[in-house]
C-alpha cells in the first residue's frame, strides 16, 4: 500500500477543515456567519507613534500660547472639542474617538518609556510583564485559532529595539509575529520542492500516526504538540491575509500608498480574520529639530490613515468590536527649542481611543494653558491600560498566576477612566 492510497480516506476531511479556517475572509462574505463571527471577536489595532508624536500638534493644541507653535486648532464634529488643524479628517470623525489629554507617565526616556507604555507597568526585578499585545492575545485569541494572535509591524529601524513585543511571564505562545523587513511574514511558505498534495499528505500521515499513538494514552504534551502543528499550518495558510494585492485597488487607494497606510490596511485584514491584536509601529516622531516641519509631514498621514481605518471598520460592522489606540512612549515638550524642535516630555501628553467599548467624542482631562502640567484628570499608564482592557470586555483586575502568586492585569486599586467607557 503506498502512502497516497493509505491516506486517501482521511485527506478530504482534514483538507476541508484546513481550508475552511484559512479562508476566514471568504466566510465573512456570508452575512449571517459574518455577523456571528464579528459579535464573538474583539480586536485592537495599536497605532504606535514611535519616538513620541507631539500632543500639541495632534490632540491637544494650544494655539496662541507661547508654547503653542504655529498650527491653529479646528473645531471637531463634537461641540467644544478642538484638535490640531493638521487633523481635519479626524475632526470630522471625532464622535467615534475619545482623547485622553492628561497622561502623566513620568518617564521621558525612549527605551524605558516605550516598555512602560507597551506594558502599562514597570517590570519587577523577577517578573517580566506581558505587553498589551500578549495580554490581548491571551484574552481575546481563540484556543483553536489558526491565525496569529499578535502581529507587530515595525519597519523603520530607529527605536525598533526600544519596545519589542514581549509576552513576559505569559510565555512565548503569546509573543508577537514581528514584521520588520516585509509586510508578509518570511519563512512561512512551504518549500517549493514539496507539492501542495504532498504537503497535505505529509500532514495527514503525521496526524494519523499521532492518533494511533494517542490511543490509550493521556498526554497533555502530545495535545500541545498537535496544537502546535495545527497552528503552524494555520500560520502558513494565513500568508494571504498579509497580501494587500488581495484587496481591491479602490480600497488600497483609500488607505494611500505610504507604508503606514499599507500596514494599517493589512492590520484591518488581520483583525477582520480574527487576529486579536495588531501593532503598527510608525516611526520616527522624535522631532528635536524642525518639529513643525516633521509634524506637517507626518500628521496628515496619520490623520488620513486613521480616518480611513475608522470608516473601513465602520462599513464592515467591525468598529464596535475593534479598538483603535494611538499611543507612544511619551509626548513632546511645550517649550520650543532653538532648532524649532520639541524634546521628550511625559508630564502632560495625549492618547486616543476609538471604537470597541469606548464612548466617542469625549476629551478627558486637561493640560494647563501652556501644556506644561496636567490641570485636571491626571492618569498614568495603569489607568489607560485599565480603560483599554475594560473597553474590550476584560476585567482590568483579573488575576494571572505566576506560580502561586496572583498577578492582576493592572496594579491594585487602578481605576479605568469611566468617562470613556460606553
Amino acid at each position, binding site marked *: 500500500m503506498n502512502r497516497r492510497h493509505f491516506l486517501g480516506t482521511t485527506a478530504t476531511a482534514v483538507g476541508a477543515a484546513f481550508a475552511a479556517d484559512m479562508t476566514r475572509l471568504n466566510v465573512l462574505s456570508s452575512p449571517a456567519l459574518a455577523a456571528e463571527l464579528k459579535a464573538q471577536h474583539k480586536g485592537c489595532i495599536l497605532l504606535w507613534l514611535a*519616538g513620541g508624536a507631539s500632543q500639541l500638534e495632534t490632540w491637544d493644541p494650544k494655539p*496662541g500660547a*507661547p508654547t503653542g507653535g*504655529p*498650527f*491653529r486648532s479646528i473645531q471637531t464634529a463634537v461641540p467644544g472639542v478642538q484638535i490640531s488643524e493638521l487633523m481635519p479628517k479626524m475632526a470630522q470623525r471625532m464622535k467615534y474617538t475619545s482623547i485622553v489629554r492628561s497622561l502623566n507617565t513620568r518617564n521621558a526616556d525612549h527605551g524605558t518609556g516605550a516598555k512602560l507604555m507597551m506594558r502599562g507597568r514597570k517590570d519587577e526585578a523577577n517578573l517580566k510583564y506581558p505587553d498589551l499585545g500578549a495580554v490581548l492575545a491571551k484574552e481575546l485569541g481563540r484556543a483553536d485559532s489558526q491565525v496569529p494572535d499578535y502581529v507587530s509591524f515595525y*519597519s*523603520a*529601524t*530607529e527605536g525598533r529595539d526600544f519596545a519589542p513585543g514581549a509576552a513576559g511571564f505569559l510565555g512565548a505562545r503569546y509573543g508577537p509575529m514581528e514584521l520588520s523587513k516585509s509586510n508578509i511574514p518570511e519563512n512561512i511558505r512551504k518549500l517549493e520542492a514539496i507539492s501542495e498534495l504532498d504537503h497535505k499528505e505529509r500532514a495527514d500521515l503525521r496526524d494519523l500516526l499521532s492518533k494511533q499513538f494517542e490511543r490509550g494514552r493521556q498526554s497533555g504534551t502530545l495535545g500541545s504538540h498537535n496544537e502546535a502543528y495545527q497552528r503552524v499550518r494555520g500560520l502558513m495558510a494565513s500568508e494571504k491575509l498579509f497580501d494587500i494585492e488581495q484587496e481591491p485597488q479602490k480600497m488600497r487607494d483609500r488607505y*494611500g*500608498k*505610504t*507604508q503606514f497606510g499599507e500596514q494599517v490596511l493589512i492590520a484591518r485584514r488581520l483583525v477582520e480574520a480574527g487576529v486579536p491584536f495588531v501593532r503598527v509601529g*510608525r*516611526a*520616527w516622531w*522624535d*522631532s*528635536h*529639530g*524642525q518639529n513643525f*516641519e*516633521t509634524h*506637517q*509631514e*507626518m500628521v*496628515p*498621514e496619520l490623520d488620513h490613515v486613521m480616518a480611513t481605518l475608522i470608516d473601513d471598520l465602520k462599513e464592515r460592522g467591525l468598529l464596535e468590536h475593534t479598538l483603535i489606540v494611538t499611543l507612544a512612549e511619551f509626548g513632546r515638550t511645550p517649550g*520650543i*527649542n*532653538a*532648532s*524649532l*524642535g520639541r524634546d521628550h516630555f511625559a508630564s502632560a501628553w495625549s492618547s486616543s481611543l476609538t471604537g470597541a467599548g469606548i464612548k466617542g467624542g469625549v476629551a478627558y482631562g486637561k493640560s494647563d494653558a501652556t501644556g506644561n502640567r496636567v490641570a485636571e484628570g491626571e492618569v498614568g499608564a495603569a489607568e489607560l491600560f485599565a480603560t483599554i482592557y475594560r473597553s474590550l470586555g476584560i476585567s482590568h483586575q483579573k488575576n494571572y498566576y505566576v506560580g502561586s502568586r496572583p498577578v492582576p492585569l493592572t496594579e491594585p486599586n487602578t481605576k479605568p477612566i469611566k468617562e470613556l467607557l460606553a
Partner: protein
Amino acid sequence: MPTNPEKLKSVKDFTHKNVFFALVRTPAGRTFVGSSDFKVSEIDLTTAKPELKELGGHQSYVTGLALAGDTLISGGYDGKLIWWDIAKKTKIREVDAHRKWIRKVRASRDGKFAVSVADDMVARVWEIATGKMLHELRGHKEMTPNDFVSMLYACAISPGSKLIATGDKVGHIVVWDAQTGAKVTELEAPGMYTWDPVQRRHSIGGIRSLAFSPDGLQLAVGGVGKISNIDHLDGKARVEVFDWKAGKRSHEFPGDKFNGLVNHLEFHPKGEWLLGAGGANDGFVMFFDLNAKKAVKQEKMPVHLHDAALSESGESIQFAGHGRLMVWEMKA
C-alpha cells in the same frame, strides 16, 4: 563704502522671548520684524533700549515681510498677506493668499510687484499698489516622491525685477518671467533634501533661501546637506550657485564648519561677496567669494538665524533669530 567681512563685529543685541522669523529695513533706517507671537512690529535698534512696537498681527507665525516704499507686506502661516502703510501705521488690506503656510514674501526693486510662496506649492505674484493678483506660478509638485506633502520655502526676485525664482523641499527650482508668469527654466539641487527610508522614514531639509546676483546671471541656493540623523539639523549648511541660463551649477559650498539651514542668502550690492545666514541649535553667518570659490569668513552666531537684511551700503547687517535681534557691522 567698502566692506570687510573680516572686521565683522556685533554692535547691538536685543533679546526677547519671541522667535523672529522675518526682518526688513527701510533705506531711512526703520526696521520691521515678524515673529512667533503672530505680530508684525517695528523696532529701532539704534536706541539704547529698543522696544517692539506692534503694527498689527496675523493668526499664526509671521514668516515673510517685504517692503516697497511706504508699503509693507507681511505673510504668515495663517495663509494671509497683509498690506500695511508704514507712514500712517495702518492696515491697508488683508488677502487670503494661500491655503497653507506662507513661507516667504519678496518685493521687486521697482516696487511694482511682490511674490509670496507657500506650502500649497504655488507662488503668487501681487500688484503692490492694488493687491491684485497678477500671476499664479505652478511648477512645484504638491507631494514628494515618497507621497508626503511637500513645501515651497523660498523665492527671490532678480535686481532688474524681470525674473522670479522659487525653490521647494525636494530641491526643485523654477525661474519664472515676472512679466508674463511663464516658466523660463528649471534647476535641481537634490543635495538639499534628505529622505530617510530606513531609520526614521520621513524627510528634512529643502531649499530655504534663494538670491540673484546683482547682474542677475547667477542664482544662489541655500539649505542643508544630507543628514544622517534627521531628528536634528546635523547636516552641513549648504550653498550652491547656478549659472541659471546655462542650467549649470557653477559653485558648490558643501559646508565645512557649521551645521544647519541656510535661511537667508544676499549678495553684496556690488557683488563683492555672498552672505549666508542660518543655524541649527545655534547660528552662523558665512561670506563667500564667488571668484575665489571659497568661504572668506565664517562666524558662529549665538542663535539660529532666520532672516537678515543688509544696509544699502552693505556695511551693516541686521539679523532676526531665535529670541534675538542683532546688528553687526563690517566697515572696511
